[in-house]
């Protein structure tokens, strides 16, 4: 039955002749492991086409949506992370196997007559694959893709005469944006793959015409069959390659997604590892010589490879006689390996680079966490702008760290914000308000140290002040202790401080009503010289009108989060004075007080 059907099909289509012409090829000198790279590349290319089309089902080439759509592929679509991982590692496998293929062809002298055109078409393929790597890197529109592409397109701009025009054409305008992403997308999914398909077809057709190039030492009387001898070896190679890609994907979780591209953030860009050698080369070339690294050397390398069949014209394919012509390839290859290694070494020892990577990774992790609840229509940057944990530190670093210190970062001209509003922070102020990390560096110098109250009262008033900033949803505080503290506060502090409309009988200190609450912090950020804040003694600039409402809210929420931190630098246990009466109740501040870390 099956035979009859295949007879019928062959009668109508002639498919058997087609299959047989494809498979029943004799290989002079026999099948070889050295020949597997070409078919390996073909297999990865097919794999890239399949995974690429799948990714296109979800990916959206838009400044606002690209990052989110890649997030969606990576974290929401069933199997998405695996498909993307295969595509990611497939691109890198292609670079490695391309290098090995080129090396094998060069060693065997397969570029010689009559295979010059096959060699040239192969070089064109090399260029196309690099183009695919370069364009694909930008598409997630994340920090690393954005900045690496900015560098790469600026390099294109260094080409004499036509450079700036080429750059504008690639970028789609003067600025990186929607036109850039659409252009790179079209190049990546349409133009380059179609050219690649065409070129691969030519390459394979030319290969079939001239056959494999056996090494000079091979016994040409040996005949191997393409199918199954060579196909078996090819298939082993393919299984190893695709298996390797799948294994890498499974063990690493697939392709990395960096934080959403943000032109306003500091970033240390690096290209994908297979372009690192070019990146590293530019470090050694001062401005006037830069063209050497961006245009001249790559151009010379390409021209040399192109002209190799003309330089090396001898009939012999024996390695010995051709060494002078192969030497530049070896030297160049070693140079590439060395520069790549050196670039990795440089970065491993570069603290600023490592720090920026950690910061970017934290931002990426946070963005991915937030995106799980949906990205707002304004896109991932809008999402991060409304997140106190992301936007707060940005605003703080820009506006506050010039005078304040938070977690070791910043300048000391005003109170430390490390642990601001926490029990430890409050206790520290009570004991030594004029310490450098409190008000010591400011004009505010009128508060008396309260150590004389003794531990029990200090604990109570600390709990009371801490509780002033309490808001719904916070971990509970010790109500009984705070009530005790209120008494102490009323008797001790209200001569100077205002509280709920009363107090400040002797001196006009800051209003402690809701001290440390979001409203209080926002008030302090907006208008610190208000009567209720530090009045005439204030030196801090007012940010009302300087920052928009969102940023004031973000930095204030971020500052309020510090009260849930437990810094150990503010007040050491030995700084807390003992009770004069030796009264009971020592340590009640912590007894039964819930762990404040829950707010993170």
């Amino acid at each position, binding site marked *: 039955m099956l035979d009859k059907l295949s007879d019928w099909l062959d009668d109508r289509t002639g498919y058997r002749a087609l299959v047989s012409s494809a498979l029943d090829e004799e290989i002079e000198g*026999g*099948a070889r492991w050295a020949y597997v790279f070409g078919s390996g590349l073909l*297999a990865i290319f097919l*794999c890239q086409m*399949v*995974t690429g089309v*799948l990714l296109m*089902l*979800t990916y959206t080439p838009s400044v606002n*949506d690209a990052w*989110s*759509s890649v*997030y*969606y592929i990576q974290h*929401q*679509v*069933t*199997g*998405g992370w*695996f*498909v993307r991982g*295969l595509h990611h590692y497939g691109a890198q496998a292609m670079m490695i196997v391309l290098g090995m293929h080129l090396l094998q062809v060069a060693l065997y002298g397969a570029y010689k007559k009559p295979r010059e055109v096959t060699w040239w078409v192969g070089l064109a393929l090399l260029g196309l694959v690099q183009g695919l790597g370069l364009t694909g890197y930008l598409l997630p529109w994340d920090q690393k893709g954005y900045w690496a592409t900015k560098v790469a397109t600026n390099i294109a701009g260094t080409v004499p005469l036509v450079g700036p025009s080429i750059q504008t054409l690639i970028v789609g305008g003067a600025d990186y944006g929607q036109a850039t992403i659409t252009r790179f997308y079209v190049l990546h999914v349409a133009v380059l793959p179609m050219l690649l398909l065409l070129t691969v077809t030519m390459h394979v057709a030319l290969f079939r015409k001239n056959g494999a190039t056996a090494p000079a030492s091979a*016994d040409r009387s*040996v005949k*191997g*069959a393409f199918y*199954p*001898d060579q*196909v*078996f070896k090819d*298939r*082993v190679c*393919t*299984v190893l390659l*695709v*298996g390797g890609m*799948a294994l890498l994907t499974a063990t690493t979780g697939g392709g990395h997604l960096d934080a959403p591209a943000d032109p306003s953030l500091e970033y240390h860009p690096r290209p994908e590892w297979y372009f690192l050698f070019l990146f590293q080369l530019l470090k050694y070339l001062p401005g006037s010589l830069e063209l050497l690294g961006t245009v001249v050397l790559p151009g010379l390398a390409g021209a040399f490879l192109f002209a190799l069949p003309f330089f090396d014209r001898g009939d012999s394919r024996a390695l010995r006689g051709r060494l002078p012509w192969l030497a530049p390839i070896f030297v160049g290859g070693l140079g590439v390996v060395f520069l790549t290694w050196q670039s990795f070494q440089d970065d491993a020892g570069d603290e600023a680079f490592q720090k920026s990577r950690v910061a970017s990774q934290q931002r990426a992790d946070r963005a991915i966490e937030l*995106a799980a*609840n*949906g*990205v*707002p*229509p304004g896109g991932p940057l809008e999402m991060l702008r409304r997140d106190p944990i992301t936007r707060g530190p940005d605003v703080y670093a820009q506006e506050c760290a010039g005078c304040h210190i938070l977690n070791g970062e910043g300048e000391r001209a005003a109170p430390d914000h490390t642990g601001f509003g926490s029990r430890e922070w409050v206790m520290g102020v009570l004991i030594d308000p004029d310490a450098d990390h409190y008000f010591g560096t400011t004009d505010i110098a009128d508060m008396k140290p309260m150590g004389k109250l003794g531990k029990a009262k200090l604990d109570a008033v600390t709990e009371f002040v801490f509780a002033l900033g309490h808001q719904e949803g916070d971990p509970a505080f010790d109500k009984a202790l705070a009530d005790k503290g209120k008494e102490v506060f009323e008797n001790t502090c209200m001569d100077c401080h205002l509280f709920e409309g009363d107090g400040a009988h002797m001196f006009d200190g800051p209003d402690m009503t809701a001290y440390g609450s979001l409203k209080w912090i926002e008030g302090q950020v907006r208008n610190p010289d208000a009567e209720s804040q530090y009045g005439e003694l204030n030196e801090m600039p007012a940010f009302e009108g300087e920052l928009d409402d969102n940023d004031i809210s973000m930095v204030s929420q971020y500052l309020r989060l510090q009260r849930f931190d437990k810094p150990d630098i503010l007040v050491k246990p030995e700084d807390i004075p003992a009770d004069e009466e030796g009264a009971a109740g020592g340590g009640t501040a912590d007894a039964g007080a819930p762990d404040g870390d829950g707010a993170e």
Partner: protein
Amino acid sequence: MSEEPSESRRSALKVLIGLGSAAVGAVLALPGVSYVVDPLLRSAGKRERWVPVADLEGLSEEHPVAVPVVDEQTDAWTTDPAVRLGVVWLRKKGEKVHALTAECPHLGCKVDYQREDKHFACPCHESKFTPEGDVRGGPAPRGLDPLDTRVVDGKVEVRFARFRAQVAERVEIG
């Protein structure tokens, strides 16, 4: 390499080639298929939210009035707090409100109310419905779908839903 490959060796190689191809195919096909059928694996959650759509005062007892339904919606990765989900036709019945979807149960075109003829008409295949939503003519397999409503402090709220087209019974699709 020098010996003539025996027939059994050739067959063994062919089997191995087939196995290798199948393995590579599976690595691509398994995640690939799950990727493509992902929408089938997601349950379309029913909307249990009441959406305020109009003031009771502004509604008529005589003619249905079309009002847009605006609510939060998550579309793939985007969560938009205010998306126009569709339109509902409202008609006052004393202190209560009768609500109908604007989607024709035939093939989902948006029906319009013709005041002169006092009926809903579908612009696609000419189905017609009474102001109560019952079929008056055309290919529609059932009447217009009613929606739950309630009135809170003079505000009309609707529980918006979509229903499968082309079937006689009402099947909510969220």
